[in-house]
């Protein structure tokens, strides 16, 4: 199962990377890069790096790519949404697909996996657990990352915030229009 997931995601990652390089339209390239970043996030999950998978989705696929798309839209004005719809057949599929997703979500929420399984997880009822019931720290898991980040690498962590502040000030200086 893990192998199947790996190869499916790896092929998708390579195809989306090739599409980024080969497509002429930068907006299409940006969207393919989002697909690629998502694939790498899945690979992080396969490697057991949950924290990085979440950070990848939030920082890269979320913040960084929004910045990219924003810059592309500012610099390369696109066409307005007028005239006949070239993707009419695809758009007609949207409503059934949305309904299907809703049905799937309801089925998953009603299933035993979520309602029966969650209650058995050790962290689901934090008010009821004693310190002895805590699971052991898995090496490479999210808890050890947190301990390292705010323990051994605390100085680097704080320096990173100074770096982000410097980048913020630098961007404001660069992008500001000259007064007068």
């Amino acid at each position, binding site marked *: 199962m893990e192998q199947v997931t790996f190869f499916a995601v790896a092929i998708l990652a390579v195809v989306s990377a090739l599409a980024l390089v080969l497509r002429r339209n*930068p907006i299409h390239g940006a969207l393919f890069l989002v697909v690629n970043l998502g694939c790498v996030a899945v690979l992080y999950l396969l490697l*057991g790096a949950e924290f990085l998978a979440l950070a990848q989705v939030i920082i890269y696929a979320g913040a960084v790519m929004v910045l990219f798309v924003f810059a592309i839209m500012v610099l390369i004005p696109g066409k307005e949404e007028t005239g006949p719809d070239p993707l009419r057949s695809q758009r007609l599929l949207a409503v059934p697909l949305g309904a299907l997703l809703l049905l799937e979500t309801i089925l998953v929420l009603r299933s035993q996996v979520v309602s029966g399984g969650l209650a058995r997880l050790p962290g689901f009822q934090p008010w009821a657990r004693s310190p002895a019931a805590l699971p052991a720290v898995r090496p490479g898991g999210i808890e050890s990352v947190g301990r390292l980040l705010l323990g051994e690498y605390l100085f680097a962590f704080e320096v990173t915030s100074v770096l982000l502040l410097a980048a913020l000030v630098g961007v404001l200086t660069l992008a500001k229009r000259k007064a007068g």
Partner: protein
Amino acid sequence: MVPEAYYTGLSAILFSIGVVGVLVRRNPLVIFMSIELMLNAANLALVAFGTRFGGADAQVLVFFVMTVAAAEVAVGLAIIVAIFRLRRRLSVDDLSLMRW
């Protein structure tokens, strides 16, 4: 369990595609996105190597790489926007001078 060599192989492929993108494209935005692709490939290799030793040090390092990449994207896009305001064109072939 997928062998570690598969991850590093995939990372090498993605990195090479990123290099090709930087070399063949002329739009600075696409070049920039190709650089992001290369950074991601390097991150993937780092995490794959890190699992061999079982600790989380590699993940912390990758987290810092992500932060620096985010700062780099912000500054780089600001530079591209500033250049575009000055030149009204987006092609790296025009940017052969160190001053204007």
